């Protein structure tokens, strides 16, 4: 990352990075019920930074500057606001309030607090979409507006989702201070699923904003990395998920062209694939085999691994078998459709057509896209018909464009 020149460039990035960490540490300090106090102090700190830095320039160590201000603001808070006496102190167990005066921001405390915060936020009672919003807000420091942009949704909708999720968060009896092995074990699945969805939200996002997509992906990777740094959360599944994210991220640059249109896998410029991320993916995939359990993350990482491999004889049969295993563990429309694509690569498009038609997913644009692709060489009229249905069903503008181009190409080929 290039060195930002003015505080205006620096602040949004720093805000994301440090706001989440600061809130995590403060929240662990105040307790979950008072998460708003923690967020207020963090917000005030950044407000002060934006004012002060505009006047006096960015300090040499901006993070340290922010933490010092946050510490002072916390001290002030305890001095001047009676809420502490009336609401917080009675809730504290004897002996615990000794720590209250010593707010610290060491690397270890930040790491512990963030881990605790991840497990706090990932509440199995929240519906997935609320869960991801909450994770983006609290764990990644995204504003409501940024979340709304990422989801292509109105701000009001996001606010409502967040409100519901936050009510669950406050009423949860989760012990953020004393997060234990049992709590980690009971929630790790939900945590991994949330990070998986967060990553996919970026990777398959409806928005064409490349910056938002990349940030969602890199936030998911950052949080997954955090999990691998703790013995309790560094499980084979965590490593498999991280491997999957690395393999997918390696193709992020090649997946869209300069207009933001999706570039199909076959047409991607492989020189744009990030080799170092592929190597990292390999590393975590090897770590993921330290156990007997094969999770969906293992299978998906395996598929993503084979996608990074050059086209060899074994590539598609392996991918097909992994899809067979994946669909046996967990049914999803996308897995079913991707499986047929792999089937077509192994046995040819003609044999894949009846397999595809059996799926009977005529309300899905991807289903028609797949059939359009399968019919393209055998029956151009049918292919065009399916592509047209896909255009009617999809809401993505760029997808409509890509499909229209494909129809034109087929019609030209047909000599019309």
């Amino acid at each position: 990352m290039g060195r930002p020149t003015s505080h205006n460039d620096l602040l949004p990035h720093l805000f994301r990075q440090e706001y989440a960490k600061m809130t995590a540490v403060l929240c662990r300090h105040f307790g979950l019920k008072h998460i708003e106090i923690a967020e207020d102090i963090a917000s005030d700190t950044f407000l002060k930074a934006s004012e002060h830095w505009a006047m006096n320039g960015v300090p040499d160590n901006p993070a340290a500057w922010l933490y010092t201000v946050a510490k002072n603001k916390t001290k002030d808070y305890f001095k001047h606001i009676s809420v502490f006496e009336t609401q917080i102190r009675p809730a504290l167990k004897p002996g615990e309030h000794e720590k209250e005066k010593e707010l610290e921001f060491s690397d270890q405390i930040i790491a512990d607090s963030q881990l605790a915060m991840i497990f706090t936020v990932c509440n199995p009672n929240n519906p997935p979409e609320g869960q991801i919003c909450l994770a983006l807000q609290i764990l990644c420091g995204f504003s409501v507006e940024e979340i709304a942009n990422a989801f292509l949704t109105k701000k009001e909708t996001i606010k409502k989702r967040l409100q519901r999720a936050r009510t669950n968060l406050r009423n949860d009896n989760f012990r953020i201070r004393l997060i234990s092995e049992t709590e980690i074990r009971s929630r790790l699945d939900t945590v991994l699923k949330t990070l998986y969805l967060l990553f996919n939200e970026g990777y398959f996002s409806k928005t064409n904003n490349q910056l938002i997509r990349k940030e969602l992906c890199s936030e998911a990777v950052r949080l997954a990395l955090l999990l691998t740094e703790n013995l309790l959360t560094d499980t084979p599944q965590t490593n498999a998920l991280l491997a999957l994210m690395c393999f997918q991220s390696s193709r992020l640059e090649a997946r869209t062209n300069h207009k933001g249109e999706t570039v199909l896998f076959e047409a991607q410029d492989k020189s744009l694939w990030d080799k170092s991320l592929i190597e990292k993916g390999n590393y975590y995939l090897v770590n993921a085999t330290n156990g007997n359990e094969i999770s969906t993350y293992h299978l998906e990482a395996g598929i993503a691994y084979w996608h990074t491999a050059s086209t060899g004889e074994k590539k598609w049969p392996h991918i097909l078998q992994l899809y067979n295993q994946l669909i046996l563990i967990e049914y999803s429309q996308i897995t079913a459709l991707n499986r047929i694509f792999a089937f077509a690569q192994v046995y040819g498009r003609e044999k894949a057509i009846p397999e595809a038609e059996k799926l009977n997913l005529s309300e899905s644009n991807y289903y028609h896209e797949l059939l359009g692709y399968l019919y393209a060489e055998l029956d151009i009229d049918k292919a065009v018909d399916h592509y047209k249905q896909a255009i009617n069903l999809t809401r993505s503008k760029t997808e409509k464009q890509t499909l229209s181009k494909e129809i034109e190409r087929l019609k030209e080929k047909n000599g019309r």
Partner: protein
Amino acid sequence: MKEFALIFRLKDITDFKPSPEQMQERMNWLGSIAAQNKLAGKGTTLLPVPGSAKTVKADKVVTDGPYTEIKEFISGFVVVKAETIDEAVEMAKENPIFKIGGNIEVREVLKRD
């Protein structure tokens, strides 16, 4: 939606251990049913090798087999979801077991409330 057990029978015990190609075909068949979201249970494969099968009869009589007594043996089963038995039969027809002289019994599962 009803559920049907597809019970696989083989004649020759040497067919039990599939070649990589046969294994792939079987997995494709199972994957195809799962991809239609019509798999109710992944099912179970039953070992036919000596020492892996006994039959317990009245008066606590235990015999080896069943493969010693009848030629055909059950090699496993899966449970599928289908509207009618005919639909389940259509699924069974595509199984690669017939290539090696096996057969499939289709049986509706009694649903308990």
